[in-house]
Structures are given as structure tokens and as C-alpha cells.
């Protein structure tokens, strides 16, 4: 999946003034690739990801996924993309991980035995197979981050958007997930845009990397 961002602008109203976060941002991602997005806190990484996830509307500019317009074809973008964001708080705390994943799988059209099989396979691969029966409220941050990866990959997306890739993950878990991302890129042609603060990870595993500064991406 190719992603093309042209002249993207976004600002927010804060305390009576307007703060520009993204300014005339351009980015071209050719299928398949793993792109590492870096930058200091508050530089606009999450805002960019949320725009790509259709959760925030841009002020101006154009974003296309294989030619499809982000604003006009939001439902299509959500169908082909998977999101890993705010893992700890985006699950139902009173439900088990398995119940959560069954629900979110159902939302994305993956249900029944397909959902169970994929959940089991991904959970085992990421080392949380033994936690599926645990309520989300009782799971650690790392387990929830891995569950968020399982949720994002259940419907085999062509694009994966990951906020804070390494958040709460130990080295072994990072390796397992990186291996899976690379495998998806090679076998399914998945494009992954991963926000990270780990320059070494970006250097070792990403095909390209960029840093947001002054509202733009510098490669």
C-alpha cells in the first residue's frame, strides 16, 4: 500500500491561540516498507498518526492510500489499516483479553473460528497466549501493548500505524514483534509506519526513517 502525503497542515486551538502542529508536511511511502517516525514529545507524531487513522481531520492538504483520499474514503482506509495506539486504555477493562479481541475482531469483520485462530496464533507469537483469559484490568502495560498489536493485526491490514512502538516492551517482545512486521512486509506487502524514540531500532530495522521538526518530516 502506497501512502502519499502532500502539503498537510494541522493546528489546534489552545488557550485562546492557535498552535500549528503540522506545517506543509510531505511524505511518500512506497509499498512495502517499514518507516520509523521520530521526534521530540509534542512534535506532532501522534497527530500525524491519528490523521492517517482518520481520527483527526486535517486543516488542509491531501493524504492518499493507493490513490484513495483519506477524507472521502475514511471507511475504506479504516478497513485496510491497523492501529496500535493508547494500548493500556483502549481495551474494556472488565473483559478478558480474549473477549476484547473477539469484540474488536468482530468490529473489523473477523469473527468465529477465524478470529479465534488468528488471536491464538498472534498471541502465542507475541508471548501473551497464557494471558488471554485474564481481565484487561489485571494485565501489565507490556501485555496490553502486545494485545494492541494482536488487535491491529487480526484483520491482516495492508497498512499498520503504530504509536510508540517500544512502549512497555522488553527486548524479547520488541524482537518478536519486529520479526512479525518484517515477515508481514515480505509476505503480504504490508506498509508499517512506526513512531519510535529508539534510534537504534530505526537504524537496524526500518527501511527509511524521518524526524518531525517544525511541523515537517526531515529524512
Amino acid at each position, binding site marked *: 500500500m502506497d501512502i502519499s502525503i502532500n502539503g498537510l497542515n494541522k493546528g489546534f486551538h489552545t488557550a485562546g491561540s492557535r498552535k500549528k502542529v503540522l506545517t506543509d508536511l510531505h511524505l511518500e511511502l512506497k509499498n512495502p516498507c517499514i518507516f520509523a517516525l521520530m521526534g521530540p514529545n509534542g512534535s506532532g507524531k501522534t497527530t500525524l498518526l491519528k490523521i492517517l487513522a482518520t*481520527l*483527526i481531520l486535517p486543516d488542509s492538504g491531501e493524504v492518499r492510500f493507493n490513490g484513495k483520499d483519506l477524507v472521502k474514503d475514511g471507511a475504506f482506509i479504516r478497513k485496510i489499516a491497523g492501529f496500535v495506539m493508547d494500548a493500556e486504555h*483502549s481495551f*474494556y477493562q472488565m473483559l478478558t483479553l480474549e473477549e476484547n479481541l473477539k469484540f474488536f475482531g468482530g468490529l473489523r469483520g473477523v469473527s468465529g473460528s477465524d478470529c479465534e485462530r488468528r488471536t491464538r496464533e498472534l498471541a502465542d507469537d507475541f508471548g501473551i497466549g497464557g494471558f488471554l483469559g485474564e481481565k484487561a484490568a489485571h494485565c501489565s502495560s507490556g501485555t496490553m501493548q502486545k494485545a494492541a498489536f494482536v488487535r491491529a493485526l487480526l484483520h491482516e491490514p495492508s497498512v499498520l500505524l503504530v504509536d510508540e512502538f517500544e512502549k512497555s516492551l522488553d527486548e524479547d517482545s520488541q524482537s518478536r514483534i519486529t520479526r512479525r512486521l518484517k515477515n508481514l512486509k515480505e509476505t503480504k506487502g504490508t506498509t508499517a509506519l512506526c513512531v519510535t524514540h529508539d534510534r537504534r531500532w530505526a537504524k537496524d530495522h526500518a527501511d527509511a526513517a524521518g524526524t518531525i521538526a517544525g511541523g515537517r518530516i526531515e529524512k
Partner: protein
Amino acid sequence: MNLLLAFLFRDLAVEKSYRFNLFVKLLAIFSQVAIFYFLSRYIEKPEYFAFVLVGLVFSSFFQFWLNVFAENIRQEQFWGTLEALFSAPAEHVYVILSSSFGKFVFNIIGMATYVVLGAVVFGMVFRLNAALFLLILLLNVAAFAGLGLVSAGFITYFKRGDPASWFVALLVDLLSGVYFPVSVFPEKIRRVSEFLPTTAALDIWRNSLLGTGRVGFGDVALQALWGALLMAAGLVSINAAIRGVKKKGDLGNY
């Protein structure tokens, strides 16, 4: 269909976590039905029990649709799951409508509990016109859900309780003939009451469940028109609110 089943499954799983809650709801319905049964015996008007029971079912149905979308959105904002829900590959408004499905099933069970208790435990006789009842139910879902979507739009954008919805619910309970016939009002209030579409809707409910009179084509057409207008207003409102919060960038904020 996947979306509806997913929400039904989720709500069943959540209810399972709070089993006592279901018991309390059923107990509350039983107490309410029993109170009005004995009240009708005390005032020596047995027909009042049937009158008020249908009123209670109607009121429960109206309040359910008025509040369900706003409550769902508020709850998802509080839990932090709203953005995850809105990542579903469907139009957001469809996700919001589907999110009520599980609770709608519980609401139908609650309504059926009123009817079954009335008939089986307290000996009330129903003369059901099933076709008319299903038709008015459908038309009223459109109208009441439309109002509910307006309220949900308010919550989505302003993140605060809709100040009007409780007042609307109170007005309907007071003026539409839920607890007593509107004929007991002084003339000026009666005119207001008769102007409310919910008063006419409740009349049709009573006719279709108790066989208390005839329903004309005009009565049903009015409900259809009202349903279409309110649903259109609801859809415009919720779509505008979602677009507004996406512009502001605080969709998931509480």
C-alpha cells in the same frame, strides 16, 4: 451484521461481569408493576392497571432511545475506547447506531418483563394487534432514536450531559398520558399535551396492545412523518458533531 453481533456479544460479556445489576433491574420492574397493580385495586379502577402498564412500557422505550447513544458515547469516552471503536471500517454513525443493539435487546427483555408480569402474575388481559404494534414500534424507533442522536451529538461535541434530554423525558412522562389520561388536565395544558406526537403515539400503543379503539391512517402517517423528520435531524446532528470533534482533535477526550 458482524457489527451488531460484536456489540451484542460485548454487552452480554459486560453484563456477565455485573450479574447483580440484571437482578436489580428485574426487581425494580417487578416492584413498579406491583405498586401500580395494588394502587389500581385501592382506587377500585382495575382498568387503570392496564392503562398505566402500557404507559410504563412506552416510557421505558422512549427513555431508552432518548439516552442510549449519548450514554454509550459518554461511557466509551470514560473507558478510553471511543477511538478504538471509531477505527472500525464502517461509517461512524453506523457504529454508533449498532452500539445500541445489545442494550436494545435488554430493553426489549425489560419491556417483555412488564407485559409478562402484568399478564401472568397480575392477570391483565391483552388484545394484541401485532401488525399495528410492530408498525408503531418501528416508526417510534425512528423518531425516538432520532432524538437520541441529537442528544448524542451534543455529548460528542461538548463532552457534557445534554441539558435538554432529562427535561424532554420528564415532559413526556407528565404530558403524554403515561400515568393518567390527558383528559384530566385543564384545557390549556390538554391542548399542549394533544399537540405532542408522543401523546398520539402512546394512544396507538394502547390501541394495539389493549384493543381500546380504532387507529386511522392519518394517525400512523403522522408518526411516520415525525419519525422521518427526527431521524433526519439526528443524523445531521451526529455527523456534524463527529466532524466537529475530528476537526478539534479531541474525539476520545473525556
